[in-house]
């Protein structure tokens, strides 16, 4: 399904491409295909995959089915960081460096990391370590990141920087090109690979800290390492696309509902669903209206009802 969506994504958009023109060697078609469509599809597929994997890590490590990069404030932290990158990176006069790494990416990562550290520090106030505390801590961090974002927007140049920041907040794969994705996607896939290698440890962290420790797990260090990897993944994606909601929350649940376990294959399936959701949402974003719509509208339309379903299912279990 992901392959079908990916192929479809290569040919859908403002500038219509056809296989016949590509085979005929039409230079303009090839340029659009290689610089815009391929990179956009790669971010849709791999970015969605990474968000799905990151969601699996967050939910398992926090032992909370509602934990996701969005809910614990990582995405909004990354967005605030990216906005700072747009403002101060421009001031530094550097936009793109080695492998396409940009100040925006670096600031987005720093923002996301800061959010995780803050959310974890706040959740430690509750010594009982209740699952709900991390969600509440995330809401607080999310609000704080939004406040920072508002302050940054107030200082932004309304004609240039503010537009870029707004574009970020809406979340879109529009504007992604082959020059900007290489570094982010390489780093993102390295993190994904590392998370797969550490899958067994992720599962061990799903237990209470004392129980995990008695199975030989150094829970504190391992949790920090995994959250760093997951945060880096999310940062790599959102630094290119802006805020994308619900992908990390919904797709791990879909995978678990189908497999009824949490094996590496389930985590992989969650990633595949993530890739499908983001690619499908991106196809809709550029095809349902005359102007391109933000991709988060469609990930939200699919994700929000599923979140409600999870809440209802949770209540029925009680």
């Amino acid at each position: 399904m992901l392959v079908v969506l990916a192929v479809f994504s290569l040919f859908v958009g403002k500038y219509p491409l056809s296989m016949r023109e590509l085979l005929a060697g039409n230079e303009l078609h090839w340029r659009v295909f290689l610089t815009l469509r391929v990179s956009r599809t790669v971010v849709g597929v791999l970015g969605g995959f990474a968000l799905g994997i990151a969601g699996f890590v967050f939910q398992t490590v926090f032992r909370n089915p509602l934990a996701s990069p969005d809910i614990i404030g990582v995405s909004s932290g990354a967005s605030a960081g990216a906005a700072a990158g747009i403002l101060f990176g421009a001031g530094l006069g550097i936009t793109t460096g080695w492998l396409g790494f940009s100040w925006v990416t670096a600031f987005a990562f720093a923002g996301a990391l800061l959010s995780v550290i803050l959310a974890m520090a706040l959740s430690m106030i509750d010594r009982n370590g209740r699952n709900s505390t991390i969600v509440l801590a995330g809401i607080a961090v999310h609000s704080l990141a939004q406040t920072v974002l508002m302050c940054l927007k107030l200082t932004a140049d309304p004609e240039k920087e503010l537009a870029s920041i707004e574009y970020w907040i809406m979340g879109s794969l529009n504007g992604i090109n082959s020059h900007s994705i290489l570094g982010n996607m390489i780093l993102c896939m390295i993190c994904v690979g590392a998370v797969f290698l550490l899958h067994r440890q992720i599962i061990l962290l799903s237990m209470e800290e004392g129980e995990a420790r008695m199975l030989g797990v150094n829970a504190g260090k391992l949790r920090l390492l995994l959250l760093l990897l997951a945060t880096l993944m999310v940062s790599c994606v959102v630094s290119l696309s802006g805020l994308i909601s619900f992908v990390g929350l919904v797709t791990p649940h879909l995978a678990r509902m189908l497999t009824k376990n949490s094996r590496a294959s389930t985590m992989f399936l969650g990633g595949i669903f993530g890739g499908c959701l983001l690619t499908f949402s991106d196809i809709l974003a550029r095809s349902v209206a005359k102007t391109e719509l933000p991709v988060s509208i469609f990930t939200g339309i699919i994700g929000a009802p599923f979140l409600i379903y999870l809440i209802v299912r949770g209540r029925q279990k009680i």
Partner: protein
Amino acid sequence: MSYFKVTDLTVGYGGKMIVNDVSFAVERGELTGILGANGSGKTTFLKAICNILPHEGMCEMHKAQGMTKLESLSAKELARLCSYIPQRSGISIDISVLDVVLMGCNPKLGILERPNKEMRERASEILKIVGLPGKEEMNYQFLSEGQKQLCILARTLMQDAKLLLLDEPESSLDLRYRYHMLEILRKSLKEGESSAVVALHDPALALNYCDRLLLFSEGRIVGEMIPAKDSPEEMERKLMQIYGPVSLHRYEDRAGHTQLVMIKEPEEL
């Protein structure tokens, strides 16, 4: 030399002493039971031995080179020596029964290693032993509370540690499985030359399966008994400290084995 020794163990939190200056020793192959009323400090005591809770005092275990202080060990080193069954496992994700049992291999594996074929086969064997044959692929969350506890026992047996610490493992089991669990535990101690310390809720189980019993009250050991040797009258006197008036009787079951039965006598008003 004792196999496992606790010296002057003291635990407290929130300005309150929960376990106060407890010392005892366990011999190799011995099943030591802890009996006490709710809130007497049994769980806190076991968690302190596991180093989950900070404490004063010392826990030592016999190794080839002499006694090793458990407090000085890393999480992995400790898990190779000791395993722990909590009252309820905190597993809250969808996970297969086999994967839960294979968690017991973690102390022997490197961080990136995966359980091998032999470990998987051993896990299936252990599941048969504990009474969960053919449930390898079943979702752990769909098991009954009793089956979950048996699955965690299987994980502990898979861990193959030299000291097993169990916190009321029988609390969610029905009568038949309570006895089954203690039978498995005794058998595994004999086969593996390991020892166990088990906090029990049910005095009948404790009296009939444990080699030695420690009676806990308000965080202290108020009595010690060896059910196979001590007279019922002597044990009654000790048990009264935690249960009030009780009487003990020895009965023969149909197989001709003697069993101790405790009856609660009316309290004097």
